[in-house]
């Protein structure tokens, strides 16, 4: 009986879960382990990897140039996350309070812009804010400014790009957690004499916190590794961690240093996920 069950279950299990497991081990586990390994190696004179243990790459990260970029990236990712949550929560709340039919259409409307190539959407901000662009023209014609402001390739424009690109990833998880909130709880709280702000801070906010935390993860972590926004809107003048990693594997050729920066991002990701799993299941994170 037992043998029969083994035969009946093992073969189909292998056939079905096998390919995905193999793919994940070959193209996720192994590369990740290898990049961690390389981060502890040293760099040869010609940009090759010398397989000798060293902590040089990690020491280099503490050099002022790189450390500044890390701090700047963290700050940018933090501000992006904070603003996405603050702007996104009331928006998600408004959508979640609509009738179900309307809400699903409104969510669809949030997604549609994101089927346009993200680089082209970023390029639009450049077109709008460039020296002879519509924003400067408007400000000049209206008499607010005498000469055009140069918005292009500034931290501010990069920030606009970051926030507008990340906002939907903040809205969706918060929307689904607010939508799941039971109405009867809010009514009970009101019936017991709680004011609306008391209800919000004692019921709504704590119960939707897992959704907020998913949003934090889904905005903060990608923002930390992004290089397309800085490339498109920063014009090579604004550099984040992602740009530095990309350069180490490109023209500069310092793989151990790029690997060490990648490990830094992996560690930060792991840390945030670890905190998240303390109070919610990873399967419940709304990633899609």
């Amino acid at each position: 009986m037992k043998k029969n069950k083994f035969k009946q279950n093992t073969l189909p299990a292998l056939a079905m879960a096998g390919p995905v497991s193999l793919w994940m081990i070959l193209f996720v586990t192994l590369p990740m382990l290898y990049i961690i390994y390389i981060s502890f190696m040293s760099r040869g004179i010609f940009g090759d990897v010398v397989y000798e243990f060293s902590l040089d790459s990690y020491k280099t990260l503490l050099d002022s140039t790189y450390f500044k970029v890390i701090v700047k990236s963290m700050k940018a990712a933090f501000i992006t996350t904070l603003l996405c949550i603050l702007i996104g929560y009331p928006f998600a709340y408004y959508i979640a309070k609509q009738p179900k039919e309307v809400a699903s259409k409104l969510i669809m409307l949030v997604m549609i812009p994101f089927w346009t190539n993200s680089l082209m959407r970023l390029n639009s901000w450049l077109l709008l804010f460039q020296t002879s662009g519509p924003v400067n023209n408007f400000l000049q014609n209206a008499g607010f400014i005498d000469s055009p402001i140069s918005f292009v390739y500034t931290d501010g424009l990069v920030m606009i790009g970051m926030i507008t690109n990340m906002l939907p990833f903040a809205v969706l998880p918060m929307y689904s957690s607010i939508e799941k909130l039971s109405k009867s709880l809010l009514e009970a709280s009101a019936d017991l004499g709680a004011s609306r702000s008391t209800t919000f801070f004692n019921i709504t906010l704590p119960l939707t916190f897992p959704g907020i935390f998913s949003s934090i993860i889904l905005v903060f972590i990608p923002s930390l590794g992004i290089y397309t926004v800085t490339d498109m809107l920063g014009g090579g003048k604004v550099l984040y961690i992602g740009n530095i990693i990309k350069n180490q594997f490109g023209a500069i050729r310092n793989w151990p240093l790029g690997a060490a920066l990648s490990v830094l991002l992996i560690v930060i990701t792991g840390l945030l996920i670890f905190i998240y799993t303390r109070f919610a299941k990873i399967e419940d994170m709304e990633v899609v």
Partner: protein
Amino acid sequence: MSISKKRKRQRMEEFIGTTYSIAIYAILYIPVLVMMMFSFNNQRYNYYWNGFTTQWYTKLFSNSALIESLWYSVVIAVLATIISVTIGTIGALGLKKYEFRGKKFINEMLYIPIIVPEIVMAVALLVIFIKVGFALGMGSILIGHCTFCIPYAVVTIKGRISGDGYSLEEASMDLGANRIQTFINVTLPSIMPGVMSAAFLSFTLSIDDVVMSNMLAGAKNSTLPVLILSMNKSGVTPDVNALTTIMILIIVIAMVLNNLIKNALKKRKKTEETI
């Protein structure tokens, strides 16, 4: 609080909420509308608005670099979708149905490409490919895309598998269907909506991807987004705006048709049930 005052306050709140949401939608749609507007700009490079023209919608087809990269992107996106949805569908079913050693580990691995910054995944794959001597090009980009599409496919489809499907599968096998017949006739139709959204998601993720394609392209030509990224210093030309406008229109039309078909099927099912 009197009722009329309460109602007034409600109306006020409704008004503020609606205005706020319209403002957010405006922020989300402005980049798309500006992108479309500048596809009609009568200028070789998009520096400022220089009058209306539709020339870019025909001229884009003679820009061979643009068309080649588009073709490259589409081929990769179609292949990535087919591979990811196939592996993702049977994988989601397998991971849901069977217990085996290491299952928890695989489930955790699936979240890595979704959560870890894409640049990290891309350079990790890059160093492995170079280490084992795998030539960079379409193959390496395809593997990169599948590596993030498969997890999304598995997660999407897994969410649609309901527990009570198993009794139907058993019934089908009891009635003499083999595993493959059961899979095609019973299991697959029940998870079809999940499979379709996984396919849509994989295709859009792949065709818009910049980071994987950029890192894994090697020295040869690459995808459309990589071409656009390389244009950022000299300025993106209006023919790219025209092409992107055509692409978004195709996607939106496909989406609307998909919804219409879905609704029609739902209605038919309902009438069948009542009969």
